[in-house]
């Protein structure tokens, strides 16, 4: 079985986000970039499927500037077999990304496509579902457990209030939630080996996909700041404020 995974290049989750003074976006200059953490979980899951003999090949896709090669190399060092870079300087939005991935799915015919449930930059949580719709296949989002059975995949999903288990026919799209697994760290020998693994490069044009943005970002602003409150000295004072000043407890 062939498994396709994604590795979106995003601002590292440890970086403090700063909005640019001209409100055109967030500051990406000299900021550490990493693989989207939810995509890392997707890569880990695919590599585990390979290690257990269920998957034969793991292909990793990244879409964006040539710098996305770094994220592909990271995935290759974690155990993916080869990479595909779709190179573009356009502002890539979920629908366009899903169309590109769909073109790659048609080319590569993977039986399982695993993506992060969302990217930590745009927080859209759309791409996997859109890809499944465009490919005309089933989906299992927010997965905390994935089990391949014959021609289908059984997935435990994190839903509001608890868990849901569904079985989806293959080929299918799975998107990962936090508890699915704990991604490994790449070892030095594997980082060296990853440098020799192949990466194919395409443009959206090569794949016949129109990636013109549908949504225009008018401005980006910092969130409204909370007014700093007061420090109370005692528990009595705290309860008194809550009960009599802001009246949030009886």
């Amino acid at each position, binding site marked *: 079985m062939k498994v396709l995974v994604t590795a979106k290049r995003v601002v590292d989750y440890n970086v403090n986000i700063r909005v640019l003074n001209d409100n055109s976006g967030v500051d990406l200059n000299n900021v550490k970039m990493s693989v989207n953490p939810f995509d890392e979980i997707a890569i880990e899951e695919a590599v585990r499927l390979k290690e257990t003999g269920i998957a034969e090949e793991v292909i990793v896709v990244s879409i964006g500037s040539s710098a996305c090669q770094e994220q592909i190399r990271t995935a290759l060092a974690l155990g993916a077999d080869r990479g595909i870079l779709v190179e573009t300087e356009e502002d890539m939005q979920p629908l366009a990304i899903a169309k590109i991935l769909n073109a790659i799915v048609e080319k590569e015919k993977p039986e399982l496509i695993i993506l992060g449930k969302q990217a930590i930059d745009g927080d859209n949580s759309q791409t996997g579902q859109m890809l499944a719709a465009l490919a005309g296949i089933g989906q299992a989002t927010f997965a905390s457990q994935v089990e391949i059975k014959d021609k289908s995949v059984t997935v435990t999903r994190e839903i509001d209030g608890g868990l*849901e288990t569904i079985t989806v026919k293959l080929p299918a799209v799975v998107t990962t939630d936090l508890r699915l697994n704990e991604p490994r760290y790449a070892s030095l020998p594997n980082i060296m080996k990853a440098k020799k693994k192949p990466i194919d490069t395409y443009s959206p044009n090569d794949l016949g996909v129109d990636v013109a943005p549908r949504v225009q970002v008018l401005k980006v602003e910092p969130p409204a700041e909370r007014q700093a409150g007061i420090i109370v000295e005692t528990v009595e004072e705290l309860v008194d404020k809550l009960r009599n000043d802001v009246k949030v407890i009886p």
Partner: protein
Amino acid sequence: MTILVVAEHDNKSIKAPTLVAIAAAQKIGDQIEVLVAGSECAGAAEDASKAQGVTKVLVADHPVYAHRLAENIADLVVEIGDAYSHIMTPTTTSGKNFMPRVAALLDVAQISDISGIVNENTFERPIYAGNAVATVQTSDPIKVLTVRGTAFDGVPSAGGNASIEKLELIKDSGLSNWDKDEIVKLERPELTSASIIVSGGRGMQNGENFALLESVADKLGAAMGASRAAVDAGFVPNDMQVGQTGKIVAPDLYIAVGISGAIQHLAGMKDSKVIVAINKDEDAPIFQVADFGLVADLFKAVPEFEALIAS
């Protein structure tokens, strides 16, 4: 301009986030139709017809919609979607699951988790876990939107009198099958709809100590939450997690106990109306967002707090 709101419901009644999505729709237009897709869902349809501001309720009542499988719900919404200027649903795990399929099949963008409405095609939404707010404009003919549950006050659930129309559309993709649900039976309110939340962090030291917070929560009728640090340390299960990677909450009162206030946690609770922080470290960042801070040993302060609220 007619707006379709896809209801979140449990077949018997509609859930509170649906009322929030209707309220958001009212800021765009006044022709608001609600789709209730479910199985034996007459109760939910009846409920939706009473919500204020709703002009018509559409009901698709069939076993194929019983578990709101994304493929079937999306196909149903797409089938009727052309008639609407906007298609909206709350940002719940169900809404997040089917709505992007709807957008892709209609070949339009989706705007996720809107927190503000500037005009009929311009919206505000949090990005980078709430560390920035983007104002975005779409040129697509149909606007597909999910609505942040804490961003608008829901419309009243009674007082409306919309007509109910049956849809005889059965969409069964055959691509997926529901096996089972494991819904945690909550004796307390659900995190995302609770008006008071008591939350613990790494300062609780272990899972047993969360009993201290539970008794406070019981007295206040509050939901229980936790920081990612407490979840990662194995003190409590993941579904209690409040933050960027957990639940986004905005109760009337949020009591953070032994939580330092990492950015990832603040992203999930800083829209709460009143924030209380109890922490022994006076430099903890949580005090910068708290309305009332108490620098104290939680193991002394929490029992004292509990005794006082009971009196």
